[in-house]
């Protein structure tokens, strides 16, 4: 026997069941203009927090055979910014500040005196394309040993000759494939690719690979995140 009810009671039951779905309406907050921005910013922050947890210090980015390399002339350039900020190579130094034992100006020769690392890694652009490039340089971790980075510091930020700026979390900076890069495809960096020094961080998205690096700061608190991040892109964007 099925229980019997009348149509009025059935309406009440149905309404009660419908009201249980009120949480669905909460999603409508994303459509309210003053709430939309903070909600999406919060969502991106959650995503970044999870990204940082997914990062594994010992896990290497895939490396590729020379045959897989994108030809140098097909390695895309960033069309949004200047291709040559007119760096004077003779006067160029890397200015190191912040939580380090030996702050100061470092010449390219001092950097190049550290062990050289060459790797074929994938450069992934936030737009969706990718290329496989050949990058040489010194490990950021080796450079950090040389300048005596405070082991409790949390961030590394860089400033560039073209007014670009970027930052990295310390775990990523200390990753064995994170390079201060001064050569691509066995040749000194060309001006379009960020001469004389750029970042090559295969565990990060393309806009983190800052070119024309002039200043490096180690800190516990991040004051400036990054050029694209300030316009709404992910702060962590680990691959």
């Amino acid at each position: 026997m099925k229980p019997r009810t009348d149509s009025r009671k059935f309406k009440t039951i149905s309404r009660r069941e419908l009201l249980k779905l009120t949480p669905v309406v909460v999603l409508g907050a994303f459509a309210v203009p003053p709430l939309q921005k903070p909600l999406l910013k919060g969502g991106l922050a959650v995503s970044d927090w999870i990204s940082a947890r997914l990062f594994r210090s010992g896990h290497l980015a895939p490396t590729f055979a020379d045959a897989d390399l994108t030809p140098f002339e097909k390695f895309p350039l960033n069309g949004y910014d200047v291709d040559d900020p007119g760096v004077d190579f003779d006067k160029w130094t890397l200015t190191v500040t912040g939580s380090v034992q030996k702050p100061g100006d470092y010449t390219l020769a001092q950097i190049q005196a550290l062990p050289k690392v060459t790797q074929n890694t994938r450069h992934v652009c936030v737009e969706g394309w990718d290329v496989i490039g050949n990058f040489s340089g010194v490990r950021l971790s080796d450079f950090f040993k040389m300048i005596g980075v405070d082991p409790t510091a949390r961030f590394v930020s860089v400033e560039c000759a073209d007014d670009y700026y970027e930052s990295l979390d310390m775990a990523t900076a200390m990753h064995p494939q994170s390079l201060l890069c001064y050569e691509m495809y066995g040749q000194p960096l060309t001006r379009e690719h960020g001469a004389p020094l750029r970042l090559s961080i295969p565990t990060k998205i393309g806009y983190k690979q800052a070119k024309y690096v002039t200043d490096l700061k180690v800190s516990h608190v991040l004051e400036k995140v990054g050029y694209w991040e300030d316009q709404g892109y992910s702060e962590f964007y680990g691959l």
Partner: protein
Amino acid sequence: MATRAMEIEDVKTGEVTEAVYEHPFLVRLCHWVNAVSLFVMVGSGFQIFRAFPSFGAKIPQKDLLDWPKALALGGWLGGALQWHLTFMWIYIATGLLYIGYQLFSGDYKQVLFVRRDVPGVWPMVRHYFFLGHKPLTKEAYNPLQKHAYTSAIVLGILSVLTGVAIWKPVQFSWLAWMMGGFHLARLWHFLIMWAMLAFVFGHLVMVVLHGWNNFISMWTGWKKDPEYDSE
């Protein structure tokens, strides 16, 4: 099938109809939250696609499709990524909650397309597309429906896996490798979205064809005058 059913007596006419509780609360909640998040994922996905409307190498880039901005969400790549990376967690959470509930409750048996459903697919196709007589069914869902829902669940899982493969090609490099590489993973992600949209289209057509009582049951759980015998 342990379905709750009841008889409803109309207070005015005294006419008695039957109603069946078809959709438990969690299923309804997951359905609608997931539907909203799928809409956001597809809309923002199109805006993300607009930034590089191609697959494979960057140069030479052949634009596959000039998707109109009006049919995309987020305004620009950065905005679309905020939507995509926010709602992916809602999409994943409702998907997991749904699958978990189906397994826990045993209801998956009425949704999951299994071998014994195979012979029933063709008669249903004939009914829908060639106006054949409607085969009798003793279950909540007919074999063609089960096939559609099971496919949607599989597509949902694949959309997440292909998405993770292109979002985290280093931490989950094995995923991209399984999909034939980074370029193909991005193509799969795109194609799976179209397959999902094909399901949504068919689903909506069926919703319209099956009328109000059926539509309302996804909101209240209760379906009046079900087409099958509840006992």
